[in-house]
C-alpha cells in the first residue's frame, strides 16, 4: 500500500517536474540571465563600494554582491541544462515527499474525496513549501542581497516550511474533526485558523512581504520575475495534483487497500456452498 503511494508520488512529481523544467528552460533561464545582466551592469559601476566582504568572511566562495557570473567558470549552456534538470528533480522531490509520503499518512483527513482530495492536498503543498517561506523570503530577482548569511537564511527557510506543514496538517485535522458535528462553514473557518495565525505571526515579525527591486533593474521586471516564480510553483503543484488524481484513481482498489483489508472476493463465498 505504501509502495503504491510512493510510486504515485514519484510519477506525479515527474509529470509536474517535466512541466516545471520546461518553464525553467523556456522562460526562467533567459529571463534570469537578462535580469542578471541588468543588475550586473549597475553593480559593475559601483563595484568599489559594493565589495561587502566585511559581512561575509568567506567572500572567496560566496561573492554574491553582483552575482559573479560574468567571469563564472561554467558555460551558460551547462548552467541552463543543470537548472532544467534540477527543475525536473524538484518536481520528483515534491512528489515523493508530498504525494508519496505525506499523502499516505494524511489522506484520511484531507478534505474532499476522489480527485478533489488530490487538488486540496496540492493546494496545501503549495502553501506549505512555497508560500510559507515566501512570508519571510519573497521571491527575489537576481542581484538582491539578502540581509542574512546563507546558513541562517537556509535554516529559517527550512523552519518556515516546517511551520507551514504544521499549519496545513493541523488545519486539515481541525476541519476533519469539526465537519461532522458543526457543519462545513465552521469547520472550514477552524481549518483556516492555523494558517491565519502563521501569516499574522510572520507579518508581525518581518512585515508584509514585498518584492525587493535591486538597483539597475526596472521595478516592472522585478515584479514580473516574482510573479513568474509564484506562477511556476502554483503551476507545478496544480499539474502534480492533476496527475496524482489520475494515478490514484486508476489504482486497483484491492492493491491500494493494504494487507489489513480482507479482499472482497474472499468474503463472498462464505455463505455459498
Amino acid at each position, binding site marked *: *500500500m*505504501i509502495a503504491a503511494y510512493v510510486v504515485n508520488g514519484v510519477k506525479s512529481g515527474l509529470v509536474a517536474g517535466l512541466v*516545471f523544467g520546461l*518553464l*525553467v528552460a523556456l522562460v*526562467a*533561464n533567459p529571463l*534570469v*540571465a537578462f535580469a542578471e545582466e541588468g543588475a550586473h551592469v549597475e553593480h559593475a559601476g559601483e563595484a568599489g563600494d559594493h565589495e561587502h566582504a566585511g559581512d561575509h568572511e568567506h567572500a572567496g*566562495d*560566496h561573492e*554574491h554582491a553582483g*552575482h559573479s*557570473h560574468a567571469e*563564472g*567558470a*561554467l558555460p551558460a549552456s*551547462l*548552467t*541552463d541544462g*543543470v*537548472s532544467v534538470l*534540477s*527543475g525536473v*528533480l*524538484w518536481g*520528483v*522531490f515534491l512528489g*515523493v*515527499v508530498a504525494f508519496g*509520503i505525506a499523502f*499516505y*499518512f494524511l489522506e*484520511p*483527513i484531507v478534505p474532499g474525496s476522489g480527485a478533489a482530495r488530490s487538488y486540496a492536498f496540492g493546494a496545501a503543498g503549495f502553501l506549505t513549501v512555497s508560500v510559507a*517561506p*515566501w512570508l519571510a*523570503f519573497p*521571491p*527575489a*530577482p*537576481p542581484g538582491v*542581497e*539578502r540581509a542574512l548569511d*546563507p546558513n541562517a*537564511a*537556509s535554516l*529559517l*527557510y*527550512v523552519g518556515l516550511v516546517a511551520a507551514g506543514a504544521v499549519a496545513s496538517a493541523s488545519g486539515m485535522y481541525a476541519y476533519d474533526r469539526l465537519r461532522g458535528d458543526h457543519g462545513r462553514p465552521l469547520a472550514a473557518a477552524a481549518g483556516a485558523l492555523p494558517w491565519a495565525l502563521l501569516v499574522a505571526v510572520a507579518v508581525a515579525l518581518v512585515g508584509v512581504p514585498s518584492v525587493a527591486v535591486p538597483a539597475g533593474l526596472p521595478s516592472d521586471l522585478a515584479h514580473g*520575475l516574482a510573479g513568474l*516564480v*509564484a506562477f*511556476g*510553483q502554483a503551476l507545478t503543484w496544480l499539474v502534480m495534483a492533476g496527475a496524482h488524481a489520475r494515478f490514484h484513481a486508476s489504482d486497483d482498489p484491492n492493491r491500494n*487497500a*493494504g*494487507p*489489513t*483489508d480482507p479482499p472482497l472476493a474472499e468474503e463472498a463465498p462464505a455463505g455459498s456452498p
Partner: protein
Amino acid sequence: MTANTVHDRLRLARATLTPTQVLSVLLAVAALGFVLVLFQEPTAHEAMHNFRHAAGVVCH
C-alpha cells in the same frame, strides 16, 4: 476494514515497513532535498542558480 484514519496509516506503516526501508527512503529524500535547496558549494550553486531563482528557493 480499510486503514482510514491517520492512526491506522501509521500502524500499518509500522507493521509492514522495515527500519531499513524507512531509513533508505528518508536518506534518499534528504539527499535530494539538500542538494536542490541547501547545497552551497560554489560550482553547484552557480549551476543551479537559475533553477533556485525560478523555484523561489532561498539561494543566497
